């Protein structure tokens, strides 16, 4: 991990660690329930009934960053789960089921009261069933109806015309499923969901994402990238899991102000920037140093990942008369936005142009089959737009088999032969 350049990044990391310690205390000492969720579940509903929630993907990234993933994954394979199964969404399960194989970060996950996931990929049903069984906890599923109509420029429709973005039958289905989830959460927590509070929370989420939109514009317009991609991710994700909270909005603003100050002062993440790179796919959590490795040698800077860009485009919903429908419209199509044709390629090319990208590194995930789809469409669309592409084959949490030196050599060659 490279040195952090922003104070906001240190604050974000400290917040997450303290938040998790507080969660453990509340669960163990106060017997407060909490939930384990897939990243695309609407966290707002849980928080509004007093149900703190931990993201599966966030937890997996922490386990991987602490270099514990290989031990848990070895244990999983030794138990007969073959190596082609998805590791990203199952690492959290492995850290629970095979807890003795490694050292779960920060004392490990306490037993949740509820697990909840959207059935985007086929494996999610299995992984969460197994995880819930291991904990002896309840599991709630949100099914994922398929999209038959995908209108162009989703990121524009989503803000004001989100009802046009999701077919009515899909929207109605997700709304009714979320209503049932709320019923269950209310029964467990003993607290009712106040619809006015939900609307207010979504308005705060909009404000938070507007701040990130402003940060994105700063990054896109600045002569040189003012903030490393890794620090963008740290600041964005720390707030996304508690989005719309007082702290999240305040932190987003602090992050924005620090970035703006750097732009105003002409401070660059990598002074003398020669190449602006984008990373397409989930983060390489076990080797985040990869993203800064080409700054000293080539002045090549990772400028863009989906983590900052997706917040404003994926989350903002104006017109909150029916807040549950607005929430459902966001929830219904995450997978399609980020991975599938035509939406993913169209958006990524648009973002590449906005950010003056010189080269794109596209993750070829080793085990995440659904996330690996759509990749060829994205690669071709970028090349057609004149942006050279380097595919990177890797597992985002599993360091086993990752050739760090070979991958870096491949990027250096890519920069020298295709970008410069």
């Amino acid at each position, binding site marked *: 991990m490279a040195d952090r350049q922003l104070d906001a990044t240190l604050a974000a990391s400290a917040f997450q660690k303290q938040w998790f310690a507080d969660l453990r205390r509340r669960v163990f000492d106060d017997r407060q329930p909490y939930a384990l969720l897939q990243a695309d579940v609407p966290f707002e509903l849980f928080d509004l009934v007093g149900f703190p929630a931990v993201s599966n993907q966030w937890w997996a990234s922490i386990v991987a960053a602490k270099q514990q993933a290989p031990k848990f994954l070895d244990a999983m394979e030794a*138990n*007969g*789960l*073959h190596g*082609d*199964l*998805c590791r990203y969404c199952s690492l959290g399960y492995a850290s629970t089921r095979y807890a003795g194989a490694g050292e779960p970060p920060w004392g490990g996950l306490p037993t949740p009261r509820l697990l909840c996931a959207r*059935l*985007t*990929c*086929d*494996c999610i*049903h*299995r*992984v969460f*069933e*197994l995880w819930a069984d291991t904990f002896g906890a309840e599991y709630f*599923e*949100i*099914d994922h*109806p*398929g*999209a*038959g109509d*995908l209108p162009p420029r989703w990121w524009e429709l989503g803000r004001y015309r989100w009802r046009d973005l999701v077919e009515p*039958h899909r929207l109605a*289905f997700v709304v*009714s*499923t979320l209503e*049932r989830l709320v019923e269950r959460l209310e029964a467990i927590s003993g607290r009712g969901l106040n619809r006015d509070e939900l609307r207010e929370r979504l308005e705060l989420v909009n404000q938070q994402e507007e701040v990130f939109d402003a940060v994105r514009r700063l990054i896109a317009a600045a002569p040189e990238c003012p903030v490393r991609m890794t620090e963008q991710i740290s600041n964005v994700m720390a707030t996304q899991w508690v989005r719309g909270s007082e702290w999240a909005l305040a932190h987003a603003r602090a992050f924005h102000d620090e970035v703006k100050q750097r732009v105003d002062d002409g401070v660059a993440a990598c002074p003398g920037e020669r190449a602006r790179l984008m990373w397409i796919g989930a983060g390489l959590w076990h080797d985040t140093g990869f993203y800064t490795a080409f700054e000293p040698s080539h002045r090549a800077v990772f400028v863009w990942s989906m983590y900052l860009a997706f917040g404003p485009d994926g989350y903002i919903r104006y017109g909150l008369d029916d807040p549950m429908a607005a929430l459902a419209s966001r929830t219904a199509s995450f997978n*399609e936005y980020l991975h*599938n*044709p*035509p939406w993913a390629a169209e958006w990524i090319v648009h973002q590449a142009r906005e950010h003056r990208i010189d080269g794109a590194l596209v993750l*070829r995930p080793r085990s995440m*089959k*659904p996330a*690996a*789809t*759509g*990749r*060829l*469409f994205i690669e071709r669309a970028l090349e057609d737009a004149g942006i050279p592409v380097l595919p990177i084959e890797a597992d985002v949490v599993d360091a086993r088999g990752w050739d760090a030196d070979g991958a870096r050599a491949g990027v250096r060659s890519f920069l020298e032969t295709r970008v410069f």
Partner: protein
Amino acid sequence: MPEPPVVASWPSVPVEIVRAAGFRPVIFRGASGPTPAADVHLEPGIFPSRLRRLVDDALAGRLADAARIVIPRTSDADYKCFLYLREFVRRGVATTLAPVVLFDLLQSRGADVPAYDVARMHALLDELSLASGRTPSADDLRREITRANTARAAARRLVRLRRSVPCVAGTEAFKLLAAFWEMEPDRYVEMASHAASRIAARPPLAGPRVLLTGAPVDGHTLHEAIESHGAVVVDEVGPWGSGAAGDDVRIDDDPVAALADKYRVDAIGARTPVDSLRRLTESMLNDVDAVVVSLPPDDAVFGWDYPSLRGVLQARRIPHICLRGDPHEAPTPADHAALHSMVSAASRLQEARHG
């Protein structure tokens, strides 16, 4: 003149509706052999053979005569295949492709799923009616359900002849049962009934009885390999063999709802709830001596069930092996060695049981 085909990627598209609308269902299955056009566009290791073949045919213009291509929400790979096909058309990569339709049948346990599926079944009926210009009445649908139920009864008779005391090899039985999805019902009844009469007259087959489970197979290559070692495949977990027929579709006032219920509950695939599959698999274990678990390279789902299944098999002292190859390709020498060992172990247990 045969009816125009409606192509589907998995037998979770209701053949009754396809026929009632005036079409002939053609359901793609995997096979060995190259798929060069598809390979240019499909990421490796994700799409099973049946989808690679379907895309290959689509890109080569071989599906131009289909009235519709219906892709059910049976798996993530199917859904992605639907999105890819749409994109091929949008980008002009596929220029002679029939309209592609998503049949969004959900299978999870959510309280809103049954009603959603009924609505999707109506949408499919509307789409196919639009294509044929013929809107089937409720009586038309009930007639097709009755015909298919009669074919299901014929298939179930075949299933009984292969289970418990098998009189037919699994390779032969699989072909006969898979034809349920491929033949016109009246012809299927005739064919299956003749086959059942012939088989019923045969003596029981010796050799350990094998269940083939894991990722559902849509071909008989593994059956041949297993049976080359002296075993008999008596059951499969999947929609092409013993699972082809399933229970009858109920006949009542609302045939669309009846079909939606049937296919939601009975369709076996990657999104079938795990507890349903577990119950189904365990119910089959009473009449088998060994189990082969097929987990091909594109498996993202069924491998998760393996440790639990292994525990059950070990508790019941049923030998088993896992095969990781493409089920449409001949097993490797190592696979054959493992099959030989498993069949030998099952034979010894069989002899011990029967004295």
